[in-house]
């Protein structure tokens, strides 16, 4: 009887599969937890079933021909997807890193690759829509090229497409009475569209990641999941395997002693001392951040004097321009060491706690540095009497990015290569260096923030950063494989990846959007250069275009949308009320489902 039951279940399965579309059917067969033999049998049965039903329904020859073409289409699609795989660059390098060092270190490289695709996308958009039309009406460049411009970004580069100042404000027409290309609108719409697309991509990636990694975490992050899900099947290196096993045993031992120990009750005096120590270290770290900001601010004021005074193209003034970026990078490189030392001093109860606090302090430092630089650019450079303030800001950002790139390479050299030599020959107790994932990812986010701010002022900056990121990838990979050992601390990869994406979105991207918003809406573009010269603000280009469109009848709907929807604050208010209502409803549904789960749980146990 049970043979018959199994047979009829299989018949049902075959019938179900036959009724699905081709791609769904293939996915369902691939997902079946059965041996290859069984899957092949079922597949052949399904194909026979489909042929039979086609026999019955359509004309014989037509059905067979259709099936033949369907098969050849699928083969074509498969080979196309193989070529698409080639586009996924660095696949092999990422696999090697994952095999030797595990998924936690791999997450840094995947994040780097993800940021790289953002930059490539931005470069392609800017190049095709803004730079290429500019090439058609380029003015000749009278300045001379000395090699120093690669470092300072000034001099020869000032009159090239690298900076905002070079772009024309005219409407480009190559053929008389032919189609025209309005540079002002192109510039503002290209940059705007890029930011909107970035916003959507970041929002959806973050939501997807959050959904997968944070839901229902609280009740089941016990040792069961730690034990059974902790083994990283990606690792294939013998040393890494041994290390991972040692990790797991150490962690299990720690867990067991924690359970036995319960909470250590501190006396009142000890608790007070601990609170005082925590407060002192927080005050000192915040104080360091404020001091760093003040230093950067005064240096940049000095910097501005150099420009407003005039262009002395001698070595001294060129070198003086580099002081600000070097100081900023030095602060970013060395203050985190101070923070880690503070973290050691405080003796937190769990090492995870210490990692989070150190990362939080680093984030505060980096946000303050970027914040003070933005304040300086928006409030001081923009209102100074320099000739072309946007180009000045673009040059500042270029120098910051370049010096940061050089410091990254140097940091890899000193932090990993020399440290390994010291650790293996002079001071063997130190051992091999470990790859510091948190600091490196924060560095990436810092650079990406600068790039996003700089897109408006230097459209080709993402292209430069693409090259920089590629070089950084190879250098870090080689340095990692040659010098580092696999990580010892347990690093909750999925949670940290989500947090990094959240950090990229919330302080970084939203901050950039506010700075760009202030620049476009409030600041007056310079009179003598750039696509928006003479206008009261960059946004005025759009409002003037709408005014022109008003006299053009076929586009009245655009004008109507603009005046009644986009400029009216009431519209956005009305839009936000249903959004809030939907969010509240979803929240209530989730609460209801949680209670249902608890009740079902009780039922299963009893």
């Amino acid at each position, binding site marked *: 009887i049970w043979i018959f039951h199994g047979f009829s279940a299989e018949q049902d399965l075959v019938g179900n599969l036959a009724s699905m579309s081709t791609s769904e059917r293939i996915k369902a067969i691939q997902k079946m937890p059965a041996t290859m033999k069984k899957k092949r049998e079922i597949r052949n049965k399904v194909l026979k079933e489909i042929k039979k039903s086609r026999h019955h329904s359509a004309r014989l020859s037509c059905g067979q021909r259709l099936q033949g073409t369907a098969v050849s289409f699928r083969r074509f699609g*498969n080979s196309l*997807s193989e070529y698409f795989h080639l586009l996924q660059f660095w696949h092999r390098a990422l696999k090697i890193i994952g095999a030797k060092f595990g998924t936690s270190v791999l997450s840094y490289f995947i994040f780097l690759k993800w940021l790289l695709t953002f930059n490539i996308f931005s470069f392609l958009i800017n190049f095709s829509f803004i730079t290429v039309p500019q090439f058609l009406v380029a003015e000749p460049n009278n300045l001379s090229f000395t090699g120093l411009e690669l470092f300072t970004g000034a001099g020869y580069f000032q009159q090239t497409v690298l900076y905002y100042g070079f772009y024309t404000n005219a409407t480009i027409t190559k053929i008389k009475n032919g189609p025209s290309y309005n540079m002002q609108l192109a510039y503002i719409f290209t940059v705007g569209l890029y930011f909107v697309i970035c916003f959507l991509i970041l929002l959806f990636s973050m939501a997807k990641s959050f959904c997968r990694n944070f839901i229902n975490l609280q009740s089941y992050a016990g040792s069961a999941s730690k034990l059974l899900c902790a083994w990283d099947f990606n690792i*294939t290196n013998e040393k890494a395997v041994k290390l991972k096993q040692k990790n797991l*045993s150490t962690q299990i031992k720690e867990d067991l002693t924690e359970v036995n120990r319960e909470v250590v009750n501190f006396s009142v005096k000890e608790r007070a001392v601990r609170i005082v120590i925590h407060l002192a270290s927080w005050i000192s770290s915040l104080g360091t951040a404020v001091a760093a900001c003040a230093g950067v601010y005064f240096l940049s004021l000095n910097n501005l004097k150099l420009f407003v005074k005039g262009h002395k193209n001698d070595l001294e003034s060129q070198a003086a321009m580099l002081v600000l970026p070097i100081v900023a990078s030095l602060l970013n490189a060395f203050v985190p060491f101070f923070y880690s030392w503070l973290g050691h001093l405080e003796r937190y109860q769990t090492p995870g706690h210490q990692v989070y606090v150190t990362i939080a302090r680093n984030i505060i430092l980096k946000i303050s540095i970027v914040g003070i630089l933005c304040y300086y650019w928006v409030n001081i450079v923009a209102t100074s009497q320099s000739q072309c303030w946007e180009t000045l800001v673009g040059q500042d950002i270029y120098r910051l990015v370049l010096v940061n790139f050089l410091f990254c390479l140097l940091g890899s050299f000193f932090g990993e290569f020399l440290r390994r030599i010291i650790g293996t020959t002079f001071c063997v107790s130190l051992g091999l260096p470990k790859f510091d994932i948190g600091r490196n990812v924060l560095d990436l986010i810092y650079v990406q923030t600068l790039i996003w701010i700089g897109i408006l002022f230097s459209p080709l900056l993402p292209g430069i950063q693409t090259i920089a990121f590629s070089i950084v990838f190879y250098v870090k990979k080689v340095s990692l494989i040659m010098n580092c050992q696999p990580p010892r601390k347990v690093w909750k990869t999925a949670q940290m990846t989500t947090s990094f994406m959240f950090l990229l979105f919330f302080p970084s991207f939203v901050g950039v959007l506010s700075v760009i918003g202030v620049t476009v809406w409030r600041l007056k573009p310079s009179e003598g250069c750039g696509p928006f010269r003479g206008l009261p603000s960059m946004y005025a280009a759009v409002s003037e275009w709408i005014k022109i469109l008003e006299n053009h009848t076929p586009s009245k709907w655009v004008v109507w949308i603009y005046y009644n929807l986009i400029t009216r604050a009431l519209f956005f208010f009305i839009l936000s009320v249903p959004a809030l209502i939907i969010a509240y409803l979803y929240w209530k549904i989730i609460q209801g489902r949680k209670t249902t789960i608890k009740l079902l749980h009780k039922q299963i146990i009893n």
Partner: protein
Amino acid sequence: MGNKQTIFTPEQLDAYQDCTFFTRKEILRLFYRYRDLAPQLVPLDYTRKPAVTLPYELIGSMPELKDNPFRQRIAEVFSEDGDGNMTLDDFLDMFSVLSEMAPRDLKAYYAFKIYDFNNDDYICKSDLEKTVNKLTRNELTPEEVNLVCEKVIYEADVDNDGKLSLEDFQHMIIRAPDFL
């Protein structure tokens, strides 16, 4: 589109592509890896479906598996005879499930079978003890192993029968985002 390969018939390749997560090129590459383990045993012509099985010792010596503490269980789970000796079908199946394109539920199903040492469709306490020892290279004392196994069963056993069934295991995996 037509690579002049004579190892498989086009229908065989289509069937492999439908049943695994691999593309044509990857299937051929895996075939060559399989053949490199024992060139004298594996023929270059699979159109007549020869019944060739490679012993476990050769499979376990592959660089991807040789340092994995669970390699024997992996080979046993995926092999047809349950002893670790694999045909080409089993070989492709194993790498298909272990690849990054396989969905998590499929991996969870096979992970359950890997951890189930006595093949009784339940992870009981002795299975867990063997798992813990393999994961920690016998560094824990027997009392510690005992404590850990009891804790795991206490936390993950939903239907309270003293051992983990497939549903308990899958229930736990869904909540662990770090599972690979």
